[in-house]
């Protein structure tokens, strides 16, 4: 399928760009990046650690920049993201692979719920245009403008601290051993509930608005008028209109995903959820640059993979993408 192949090529280019930026960023910044790090760490870095950092950042001066660049690619293909300085001597990839599943499950579930519920709500609001349901729009706008982590703090203080309905930190009860047992899964759901609510509440407005605006336009189409005129039940007519109105929502999935992921990372931090976001905070606080860069790469790859899935769905939904050749 040429459409999908084109998208795949685009994601490869994007991945290449992300990796290259990741490599060259330390070189582009003003001054000597290693000196900056030493100055910032206020004596926390030992001379050996500074030397190791120089080699890792390709600033050792032993090899040309391009030599370092190709060596960096070689390391990446072996899954080697370098050594974490804060979890020394653990590999960055080891640290990340422990955290990644938490984030994937939390953000994945929340995003799917948000997309499905938001799209349905948007269709309904457009269908009942002019009724009290229009009030949903300003309210959802407000929720969209609330920073994720602020909403997270409010939920944490109210449902976690005051009411005590939900745990306020962690991904599961400390006493439990991770596994596929029923109590463990229940504990995971209990811990993930508030973070998921935060992500859904903050991201759902975008889906409602884009679906509603598209539905309003689609409902003016002649074929919808015909469907109504020949007396089809309302639910079926909405279905006809929604089927076409949903396409831009699916294709704009990639645009909003980057925002959702950023917000989700901050949500994890507030809830001390053991995912990538929490690692990000640790990496920032302990000036762990290899971990920081590893997180950037892994998040980029995850977003690209999710986009590819969205593209697959789009190809299934829209026959036009399959016809053009």
């Amino acid at each position, binding site marked *: 399928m040429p459409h999908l192949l084109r998208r795949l090529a685009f994601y490869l280019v994007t991945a290449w760009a992300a990796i290259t930026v990741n490599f060259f960023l330390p070189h582009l910044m003003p001054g000597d990046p290693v000196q900056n790090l030493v100055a910032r760490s206020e004596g926390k870095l030992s001379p050996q650690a500074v030397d190791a950092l120089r080699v890792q950042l390709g600033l050792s001066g032993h090899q040309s920049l391009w030599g370092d660049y190709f060596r960096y690619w070689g390391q990446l293909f072996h899954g080697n993201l370098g050594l974490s300085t804060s979890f020394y001597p653990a590999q960055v990839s080891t640290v990340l692979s422990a955290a990644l599943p938490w984030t994937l499950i939390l953000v994945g579930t929340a995003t799917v719920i948000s997309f499905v519920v938001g799209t349905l709500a948007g269709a309904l609001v457009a269908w009942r245009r*002019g009724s009290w349901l229009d009030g949903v729009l300003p309210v959802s706008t407000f929720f969209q403008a609330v920073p994720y982590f602020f909403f997270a703090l409010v939920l944490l203080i109210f449902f976690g601290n005051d009411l005590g309905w939900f745990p306020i930190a962690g991904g599961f009860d400390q006493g439990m051993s991770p596994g596929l047992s029923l109590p463990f899964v229940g504990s995971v759901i209990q811990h993930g509930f508030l973070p998921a609510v935060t992500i859904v509440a903050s991201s759902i407005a975008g889906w409602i608005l884009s679906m509603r605006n598209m539905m309003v336009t689609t409902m003016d189409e002649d074929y919808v008028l015909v469907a109504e005129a020949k007396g089809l039940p309302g639910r079926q007519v909405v279905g006809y209109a929604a089927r076409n109105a949903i396409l831009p929502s699916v294709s704009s999935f990639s645009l909003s995903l980057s925002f959702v*992921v950023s917000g989700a990372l901050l949500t994890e931090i507030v809830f001390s959820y053991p995912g990538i976001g929490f690692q990000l905070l640790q990496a920032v606080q302990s000036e762990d640059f290899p971990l920081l860069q590893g997180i950037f790469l892994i998040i980029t790859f995850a977003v690209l993979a999710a986009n590819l899935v969205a593209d697959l769905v789009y190809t299934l939904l829209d026959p036009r993408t399959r016809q053009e050749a």
Partner: protein
Amino acid sequence: MSVDVDPELIALPDEPVVAVRASRLRLPRSPKILIGFALLVLFLLLAVLGPILAPHDPSATTADLLQPPSGAHWLGTTQSGQDVFSQLLVGARSTVLIGFLAGATATALSIVVGVTAGFVGGLVDDILSLVTNVFLVIPALPLLIVMAAYLPQSTSSNPVVIGLIISLTGWAWGARVLRAQTLSMRRRDFVESARVIGEPRWRIIGHEILPNLAAIVMSSFLFTVLYAIGTFVALAFLGVVDVSHWSWGSMLFWAESLNAAQVNAWWWFFPPGLAIALLGTSLALVNFGIDEFINPRLRAAGLSRKVARRAGLPRRAKLGLTPVLGGHR
């Protein structure tokens, strides 16, 4: 299909002054956009006057530790006795400044890239579109964190630098929208005629195309400001940018790192969060107004049932019937 409604039926009688002014600005007279504008002006005033109005030094510590709101401290105090209200007023400036600076820079960048790509076409378009899409897909916050973390301390505490860095990740959305719009305008008759007359390229872009993009540019500017403020607050909250400089983000950083939520000091983190949310809402509301201006079909939502009945429209807007408020063509 649309029905022309007599504008007099729609005009709200209790707001004559506002209605006149709004029609002169050719903006929809919807309460949404008016509330949004009012809030936005309020926040801009706050940014200008905030540091002057602040009753206390925001960093000064007093003996009133962790006090709830009172007459002496309108929004209470922090763990070290700092006045939250003063922090909020002083912090407004850098938050709003960075938002608007990043918004303006990113919008300028998106006009250059988007209009060039749409107007020139061919290989230039292919390359610029590719770059735009790459920037759209790469998650911005982690990239910004990596960039900010590598900056020397003296540079990362400079709000202008932070604003510019944020704008680097915020231009792509606007560029994509502007490219699409330019593309649809490139072959229209008025542009073709300017070309036939022999107008130079810069004049066609400057005088024929850009004025027609004004509404979209404005909308993308507001969207980018919204994005920039959210991003800046997030960076400060994480402590990546200098948190000794007061902003709403750094207020939240201190509230979080000193466990304001755990000791139930709601007056500490609620004001900055609410201020950010309201500023964001005002930007989004004005943006709605512009959207409705661009696409009149969306506007009918502003018709309440009462107004619709007075205008002789059916109780529930039926399919294929789009009531359009008067005053625009």
